[in-house]
């Protein structure tokens, strides 16, 4: 069965099991490996992508559910909030092992897109679904604030 959707701005048609999680369709069929597998049950956020701009966990989103939708992965991330977030990530040296960071950046970008000046509580709410085992949370928080500040400037 073919599922058609827009992946990073490009019309995409994938012939696959419609119950296959979007995560594996994106990684193994579309060949975009920036989105990571961490838990498979929407507990860790490593697989976060945007569906029509909203952060979703692609590990529990069946391919069939994205038919006709716009999906953005870390590879297709663009726009001012995304650029500001990624620049802040490098500037504040957020990543350690780096494995969760695509998901963190997707969640952070979605947050800044709808809330240009998030408070610490807003950050807690938006980011608590993204686990980082290296414990980079201090810098993730600082980088989100820095990205917000750079967008304001």
């Amino acid at each position, binding site marked *: 069965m073919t599922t058609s959707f827009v992946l990073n701005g490009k019309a995409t048609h994938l012939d696959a099991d419609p119950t296959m999680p979007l995560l594996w369709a994106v990684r193994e069929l579309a060949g975009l490996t920036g989105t990571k597998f961490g838990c*498979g*049950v929407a507990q860790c956020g490593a697989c976060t992508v945007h569906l029509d701009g909203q952060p979703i966990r692609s590990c529990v989103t069946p391919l069939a559910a994205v038919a006709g939708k716009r999906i953005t992965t870390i590879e297709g991330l663009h726009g001012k909030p995304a650029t500001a977030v990624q620049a802040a*990530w490098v500037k504040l040296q957020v990543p350690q092992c780096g494995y969760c960071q695509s998901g963190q950046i997707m969640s952070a970008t979605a947050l800044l897109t709808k809330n240009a000046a998030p408070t610490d509580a807003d950050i807690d709410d938006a980011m608590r679904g993204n686990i980082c085992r290296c414990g980079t949370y201090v810098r993730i928080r600082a980088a989100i604030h820095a990205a917000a500040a750079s967008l304001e400037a």
Partner: protein
Amino acid sequence: MAANPQDLTRTSRRRFLQAAGAATAAALTIGFEWSVAGRRAMAAGAVPATGETSFAPNAFVRIGSDDSVTIIAKHVEMGQGSYTGIATILAEELDADWSKVRVESAPADAKRYANLAFGMQGTGGSSAMANSWNQLREAGAKGRAVLLAAAAQQWQVPVSELRAERGVVHGPGGRHASFGALVATASTLPLPATVALKDPSQFKLIGQTIARVDAAAKSNGTAQFTIDFSLPGMLVALLQRPPLFGATVKSLDASAAQAIPGVVKVVQVPAGVAVIATGFWAAKRGRDALQVQWDETQAEKRSSAAIVAQYRDLADQPAASARKDGDAHRAIAGATKKISATYEFPYLAHAPMEPLDAVVKLSSDHCEIWAGDQFQTIDQANAARAAGLEPAQVSIHTLYAGGSFGRRANSYSDYIVEAVSIAKAHGAGTPIKLQWTREDDIHGGLYRPLYVHKLEAGLDEHGALSGWRHVIVGQSIMGGTAFDAMVKDGIDPTSVEGAANLPYAVPNVQVDLATTKTGVPVLWWRVVGSSHTAFAVESFIDEVAHAADQDPYEFRRNLLEQEPRMRAVLDLAAEKSGWSSAPLPAGRGRGIAVAEAFNTYVAQVAEVTVGADGKVKVDRVVCAVDCGTPINPDIITAQMEGGIGFGLGAILYGEISLKDGRVEQNNFDGYRVLRMHEMPKVEVHIVASTLPPTGVGEPGVAPIGPAVANALFAATGKRVQTLPFARGGFA
């Protein structure tokens, strides 16, 4: 054993080197250098398509005629910053232009790339910087010396009139040549036998905050982990492992699995039943459809509670002696005031973000492996055994590891051997990617062991600590493994580190160890012994201080006269945290703890708020660290922050529990780790030092648990003696 207990950790490292060296028969070459012929071969092998040449003075650096400086990292990058640290040390002495520096991972080759602390190639024990320090400084300095000699020859001027700076050699009269312009000549020149290293005052990169070499790729999704690596024709395998440790396959019905579209083959291997498919999802569906009957007669069927009960009994029995100074029994028996406590520590999973995975391509005479490999020499030997080849026929490509915390460094090479055995069972040279799921990881064993610690202390009539008795009960990490030779007189040093080397001046000290056996496979977990010993020692010394009616910081400090580095970090953390300032309001508290691990000293002060529900929220942690020469202060800071977050998650929530042998947790819902809203503010203070550098990947984990427990006590008067905090309703 007790002759010099303060030196136990260091002694252990040396013995580890000998034991590991013996286990692997790895030849150890310090500062491996290429002959001129070897250098030509190395350069030829590295010739880019453009036909450029390069100069490789040794196994650690290659300089291209395009001015590129490629530094070869013998340590895996798993988040700890090893690539950046390694490159910094070498580039410093080479006087390289940092913007031209790239890092490449070393192949598996113990002769050239041994960890000098182990005698084999591998990463662990926070040793990457410590063991590389002299080796890579020398490697860089010799490279620079030859480049200078090349310029001297080209320009016919004495070397003494030349200097190197940021990738350029400068000579008299404004002459200059980039390193790249000198490689052709340099490749023909002999290497100096000895070379002078820089005085620390000349350092330009070391001690500076240099951006991580991997930060950009890890912020845009391009960093390549094993899960991202694929080969043409590669298939994906998931492995069904036994539901109980020690169970084996009794019968298998693979028909339903084989009917799933995309499933290519179902194979039985020593570790279980593998479903090989065209992709992860088909393999997962196939594995879910497997019908396996297990033989559980030899399996571990106990529950955690039964193991704890047994350990509590053993804590009162005679045990092996790890340290004996004076007569602790008598001192405590005759004490004016006696204090005792028993602590319980659960099994812990490492749960790195990237579930274990490996890609294997196997032919009749070669096994090629791609993995976030942490123990190359051991993995090479174990893969060879599984493949039926010689270790030299196994090559390993070390990729970025999505975390490890010790998990990927195990003497069984479990995930590597599984992948090799599946590739072998499939046959036909088909590349196989073995992918673990999170459930596989949580159920998969090789946990930080479960321990029970019993402590007793006595205060004399002056309130002085006169006796200290500490009994540790738990499984040995090294016994029965390739590191078995490390276990001497019944003492596995990893069981007692942080306890047998009690830093406090106490006249009568006894530390005993009862080593147990269970069917649960165990392994080192970030900061190893100190992941439990620091909690027991630092919680208990806090209890003793309160029993003596003394300030817990001052009490520790007075017992650390002989431990100046430990005392200095304790003082620094106390000072920066405002320890002596006004007490915190009701419901809040401060706690302090200090620990040495892998020759790095860390003190932390935690500030907590305890809610009406009794649950603790850690607001702020002030951390002081002495790791010798700080190579990259920002990475040190990051490792302290991360260590605090990692350790905090474990002490608040971390627990692998068994019910009739079955692991009760499955994923991050049951095996809770720290999340964003639980992360405290962290302030890190680094002690200035010119001593040789020591590691920072692990030591920051050690003091956070007791610091928080002591803060909880300060706020509530309640002591946490059973971990995790969640067990007692404190988290």
